[in-house]
């Protein structure tokens, strides 16, 4: 008891003797925490709203009774129809939006930091175009690594990893620097894009249409199985990235500075990039390529809470979740019962907000 009182007294006396810069920094930390809380609240509110929206004629009460019935079946009762709509369609789609938004944004934020390039995203490293090629190969040729219902998913996942290793191999040959990785990524991107174009050229009209639709990205293919895989990979990879956030900060200051601060530059860059590719692959193989989120959510976050990856990674995850969930909710309600591809909505929703921040704060960030 007395030691607690002593600790509190010490903390209070420290608080009153803080140096100016430290006090300002602590205020900035408070701002970061407030930003996190607003985002968490935003995601919860948006998810709560999104689950009540849709073309099926269900009231708000029916939706929430259906959710509660799953946990407290003795107290709440629902219909099979409502259960299918809420648990079988809406909730898994909403959660998939949240997890996919988080994963793509974390991957974008970390890639931009590690490669010291504000334009880095899953597209820059050829990961997205490799996934498209894998899917196109399955759709047009019916060829792939695993047959059956997972043909497209497995193809895009495996080709994504092939692209990542190819980028790594090419960069390793010249020395793993941000420049070599981006150049190798761009070479791989053009290669897979050309091969996808070739498949579209030789494919039938319906096949080409399916490829194009896949490339636009959608959360419509959500399922609990897919959600579990995506979530598991994100949960496994995220702690390592957060643990390495100091090193990612140091890499942003240049390889020499990072080395002088004790960072094992090559190993950190390679392990992080492979984990980021894995996160991206596990998402886009299920959703198709959803552009913009991975590029812009980190920038929006950076503009508000700065570039320290200890805060930027979780912050980007929350902004990405909010952005993707918001885009998908609009995409499936704005022209209901028609559901627009979410990739189109992410840009429509995100660009104006991004341009606003960009115009308002451009001098400080670019």
């Amino acid at each position, binding site marked *: 008891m007395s030691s607690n009182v002593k600790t509190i007294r010490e903390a209070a006396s420290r608080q009153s003797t803080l140096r*100016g*810069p*430290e006090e300002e920094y602590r205020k900035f930390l408070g701002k970061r925490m407030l930003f996190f809380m607003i985002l968490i609240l935003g995601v919860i509110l948006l998810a709560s709203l999104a689950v009540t929206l849709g073309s099926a004629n269900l009231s708000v009460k029916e939706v929430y009774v259906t959710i509660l019935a799953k946990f407290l079946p003795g107290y709440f009762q629902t219909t099979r129809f409502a259960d299918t709509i809420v648990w079988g369609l809406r909730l898994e789609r909403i959660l998939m939006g949240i997890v996919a938004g988080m994963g793509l944004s974390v991957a974008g934020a970390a890639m*931009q*930091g590690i490669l010291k390039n504000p334009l880095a995203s899953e597209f820059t490293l050829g990961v997205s175009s490799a996934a498209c090629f894998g899917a196109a190969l399955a759709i047009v040729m019916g060829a792939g690594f695993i047959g059956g219902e997972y043909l497209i998913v497995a193809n895009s996942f495996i080709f994504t990893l092939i692209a990542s290793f190819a980028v790594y191999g090419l960069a390793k040959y010249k020395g793993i620097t941000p420049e070599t990785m981006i150049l190798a990524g761009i070479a791989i991107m053009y290669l897979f894009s050309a091969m996808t174009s070739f498949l579209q050229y030789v494919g039938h009209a319906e096949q080409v249409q399916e490829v194009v639709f896949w490339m636009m990205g959608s959360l419509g293919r959500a399922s609990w199985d897919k959600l579990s895989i995506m979530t598991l990979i994100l949960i496994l990879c995220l702690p390592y990235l957060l643990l390495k956030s*100091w090193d990612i900060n*140091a890499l942003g200051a240049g390889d020499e500075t990072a*080395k002088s*601060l004790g960072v094992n530059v090559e190993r950190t860059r390679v392990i992080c990039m492979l984990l980021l590719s894995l996160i991206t692959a596990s998402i886009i193989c299920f959703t198709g390529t959803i552009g913009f989120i991975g590029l812009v959510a980190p920038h929006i976050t950076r503009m508000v809470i700065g570039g320290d990856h200890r805060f930027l990674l979780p912050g980007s995850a929350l902004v990405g979740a909010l952005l993707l969930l918001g885009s998908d909710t609009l995409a499936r309600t704005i022209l209901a019962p028609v559901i627009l591809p979410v990739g189109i909505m992410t840009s429509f929703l995100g660009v104006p907000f991004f341009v606003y921040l960009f115009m308002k704060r451009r*001098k400080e960030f670019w």
Partner: protein
Amino acid sequence: MVKITINDLTFSYNSSAILDGLDLVVEGSEVLGLVGPNGSGKTTLIKCIDRILKPKGSILLDGQEIDRMTQQEIAKRFGYVPQSSSTPLSTTVFDTVLMGRRPHINWRVSDLDLEKVAETLELLHLEDLAMRDFSQLSGGQKQKVLLARALCQEPSVLLLDEPTSNLDMRHQLEVMEMIASLVKSKKISAVMALHDLNLAAMFVDKLAILKGGRIYAAGTPADLLNAKNIKEVYGVEAVVMENLHRPYIVPLRSINSEPACGQ
């Protein structure tokens, strides 16, 4: 007091030798200036001491081979100030300096770390810039912030790669005065690559002149900065004035028949 002993240091980029069997000793709380023409190996030597580059030969820090030290241990002993000033996107001055605590912390930043950063910012008169974006600062301010980051590592040796190269006259003097005073007050050593011989004459305690990847001569500025050495090392005819209580070099002309770079 720290002691660095460098023996037979060799480093090559591809097949071209930059350092060629270099020997040097840095001892005590002093500022050692590395001077010499472009390509003589000044920057490379600094990077080799900090293990940013991995040379052949031996570098002992207080009798311990730095080859056998972990990168983390090296980062606690050497603070490196690079020539160029890049930081991650949207990083405040405080965050930039806090990065210097990286060798001392695992993940969580302690009160002590924050205090160290605040103390260093105040020491270098940067407290008013603490929450400014690093990229918005002037060249002189950036250089001081990078110096603050290196100081936050609490090193025994500061390694500075041409710390005044992009600065105007006033900032050059400010930065050099700051380094010289820090070395004395914190009882650390500083090894810095420099181009300006007059600045070197004003602020360094000892000088090592590099030529062709080797130490051409080492000693005090007063002993080494003379017309003969400048002609031999730089291929420049110069007048050295002595009436300012230190050598002051006025270059006259280059000697075209001799190579300016001693390779």
